[in-house]
């Protein structure tokens, strides 16, 4: 059953009063001239606080979260989010601070930002970080704008960016948004960047390469130093997409691999909650040669304490109205300080161990996209199952009935019927085993009980929804006439 919308629950005259009128007279309101006045009031629902709480509580129950159960969504790093961060983020000393406060009135905030930047720089082997980008994709935008500016300031804009065929969709989308032509570099049969092909693609027009390491197949690019060297020799820059940094955090640094610029997803490796699809934060780190181009504002230590610095002539400019998703940065700061380097090493060790263990348990029943050890995630192909009439999507939906959030499916695009699994370090062994058992049961059902796979999910409020019809007959907002209900 679908839940009715709040608009259908609305009844004229219902509501709650949160703000009183403090006894002012209508004289003041008459100062608002007619030209400025709104004609039609917005048709918001009229419901009581009790109805609102019940409505959203019931919607919450139709959602899966890390707090509900295992969420092995590949490349998304759905790990446990510590509650201390939530509590501190709600302290009004942090949450009620106006972004344009005088620096004297925000020394705690500025210090959190300053120290977070320093810790991220240390962990990544970068000269500096900006905390401004509001998400990984905005971090990529920031990074590639800096790459563009770097070449411009050297006298010649370069027009091409190389992206491996296994890259996240945001990489080519970002390069294109910044005006670069995207050239795809093929992978080898082993799932790694084809260095020979890369040599052939490099020339004086190449601005840089965008890489994830470990890549989206969960494999470490062994020849990463050579890749970065080749790009540098051709005059280009190397961009590191930090979406998969959970595999390496506390142990290895993108700076040591040869990268010039990178972003991190604080909502992945640094455990800030994903919030149903944001807000995240995508800090960007740079080597010294890109430092002048960092966006504003940056935090510096001045004579009178910490302060924002906005006067940077070579900067690519501003990405947000203020200084980025500060409350997300605060949560990451808390995670970093709680764990320290030792804790972070434990994180990457456990994440890689859990992924390898899970992969090992599934071999035989499923084919890996690439045999051998993986890093923090691995990719299976359901090509074999597809030959028997069961697709990756069927496996995913059946997992829902068996009590798990499905892995990422149909990505990377280079793997047919891909299932991309990232258990993260915070799932215990019993859960890993239970997930493996569910996958093995499904493998048996492929031969024994295909119907149950095609019919899945059956335990959810709705079954598989017709996305094709939804895109044809767009219904993107509630309207009273369509539903014949209360407005």
């Amino acid at each position, binding site marked *: 059953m679908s839940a009715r919308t709040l608009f259908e629950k609305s009844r004229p005259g219902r509501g709650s009063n949160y703000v009183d009128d403090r006894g002012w007279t209508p004289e003041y309101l008459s100062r608002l001239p007619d030209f*400025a006045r709104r*004609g039609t009031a917005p048709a918001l629902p009229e419901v009581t606080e009790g109805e609102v709480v019940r409505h959203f509580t019931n919607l919450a129950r139709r959602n899966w979260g*890390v707090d509900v159960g295992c969420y092995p969504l590949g490349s998304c790093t759905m790990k446990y989010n510590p509650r201390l961060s939530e509590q501190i983020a709600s302290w009004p000393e942090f*949450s009620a601070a106006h972004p344009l406060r005088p620096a004297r009135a925000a020394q705690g905030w500025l210090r959190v930002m300053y120290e977070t930047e320093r810790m991220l720089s240390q962990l990544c082997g970068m000269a500096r970080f900006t905390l401004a980008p509001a998400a990984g994709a905005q971090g990529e935008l920031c990074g590639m704008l800096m790459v563009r500016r770097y070449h411009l300031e050297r006298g010649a804009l370069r027009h091409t960016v190389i992206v491996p065929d296994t890259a996240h969709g945001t990489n080519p989308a970002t390069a294109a948004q910044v005006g670069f032509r995207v050239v795809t570099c093929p992978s080898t049969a082993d799932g790694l960047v084809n260095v020979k092909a890369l040599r052939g693609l490099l020339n004086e027009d190449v601005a840089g390469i965008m890489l994830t390491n470990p890549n989206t197949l969960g494999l470490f690019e062994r020849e990463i130093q050579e890749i970065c060297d080749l790009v540098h020799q051709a005059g280009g820059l190397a961009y590191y997409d930090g979406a998969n940094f959970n595999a390496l955090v506390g142990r290895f640094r993108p700076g040591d691999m040869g990268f010039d610029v990178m972003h991190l997803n604080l909502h992945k490796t640094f455990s800030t909650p994903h919030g149903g699809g944001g807000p995240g934060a995508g800090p960007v780190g740079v080597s010294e040669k890109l430092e002048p181009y960092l966006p504003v504002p940056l935090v510096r230590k001045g004579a009178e304490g910490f302060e924002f610095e906005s006067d940077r002539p070579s900067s690519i400019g501003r990405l947000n*109205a203020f200084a980025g998703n500060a409350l997300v940065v605060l949560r990451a700061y808390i995670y970093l300080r709680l764990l320290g380097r030792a804790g972070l090493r434990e994180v990457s060790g456990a994440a890689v161990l859990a992924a390898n263990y899970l992969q090992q348990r599934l071999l035989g029943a499923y084919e890996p996209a690439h045999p051998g050890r993986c890093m923090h995630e691995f990719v299976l192909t359901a090509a074999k199952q597809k030959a028997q009439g069961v697709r990756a999507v069927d496996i995913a939906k059946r997992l829902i009935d068996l009590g798990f959030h499905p892995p990422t499916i149909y990505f990377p695009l280079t793997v047919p019927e891909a299932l991309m699994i990232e258990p993260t370090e915070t799932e215990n062994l019993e859960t890993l085993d239970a997930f493996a058992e569910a996958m093995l049961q499904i493998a048996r059902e492929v031969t024994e009980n295909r119907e149950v796979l095609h019919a899945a999910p059956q335990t959810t409020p709705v079954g598989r929804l017709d996305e094709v019809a939804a895109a044809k007959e767009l219904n993107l907002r509630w309207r009273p006439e369509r539903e014949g209900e209360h407005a």
Partner: protein
Amino acid sequence: MGFVPHTEQDVGQMLAALGLSEVEELFAEVRTALPPGDVPDIPGASELELRHHLWEMARLNGRPDQTPCFRGAGAYEHYIPAAVSSIISRGEFLTSYTPYQAEISQGTLQTMYEYQTMVCELLGMEVANASMYDGASALAEAALMAMRLTRKHRLLVAETLHPHWRQVLETYTANIAPEIVPLPASDGLLDPEQVARALDDETAAVLVQNPNAFGLIEPLREIGAHLVRHPALYIVAAYPTALGLLTSPGEAQADIAVGEGQSLGLPLSYGGPYLGLFATKLEHVRQMPGRLAGVAYDGRGRKGYVMTLQAREQHIRRERATSNICSNQMHAALAATVYLSLVGPDGFRKIAQNNFVVAHQLADRLCELPGCALAYPHPFFNEFVLNLPVPAEDIERELWDNGIISGLPLSRWWPERTHQMLFCATEVITDAACHRLVAALEEALP
């Protein structure tokens, strides 16, 4: 303290299954591929120890209940009903991700749909996306969309636009390098006739903010009337709280409407996370950036919600996507949806009225002080520029010494405006706080 649940025995069992004896072996390949080097140490701390430290940091920011803040300038403190944080902190919302698997994400998806509906209602538009990062980046995305739709590259941008928003627009469009033509303000406001004269065949869009950076109410409708017959798109940036009283972008015939949604149930948060509202006409939906939820039905005819028109997006279209945006601000959008549901149409109007009255009462009282006067004679909403007889930065310092965060010295944005301060008063400003401000300012004046 990595929240890792693996016991020594668990680790042993997993390693044994892999034929390994220690975790380090899993990184052997990485180690040989990289130069030797180590990550500098970062000390860890217990939760209790860290809490002490965080409390020290928090205190450096001052107690907000004791430091009234008369600053807006793009970020506004509004009352947030207690039920908002109670609902949005539920783990099913907080710890979920983008609803790739619709059947177990109906909570997020239906919220997106309800949010889209409410944003359409507020802005008076036909279709809204499920959120952008903030108002400024939403405006930049709107300009990019207008350039895609019109294939023109001249943007007429109000001089009265928030200067940070203007900077974000420049950052986002750096590689397209549109010609950004400033629309001059006379006496703090745009002149519709001048806007009309500035339009030409190369114009992609006209960008206007209401209320503008000085808090003044722009002639939105008149500008819209000039634009109706012109192929250039009309992009209006609105302050949502003001929409309880003021003309909506739709009423002014906007083609794209954006807004900073922070005022809808989100705390000031030292600048973020905020919420970018984005809405347009249905005919432009395929060029709209960002995620979008729509109604869909399952095989048994049951109604549900899915992410739709995904063919616009980066994970499908890669380099041909309408934007590179991936994650958005869903949790902030949830807060806004809950907020709007709680206050309802009546409360929404009352809150806007309350802001209008409180700010005007404050302005009246400040104007009674010697040498103080409104900089502009035009209608404003909850923010106004006050001319001071002394440099505004001195006043800022003196008021802070009295535990008051003053209005924003406009020299921060325009160095020549040394004696002007942008004051804001919302419904959270008490009469007592106003008294304190007036008394402290009187004290600080010569």
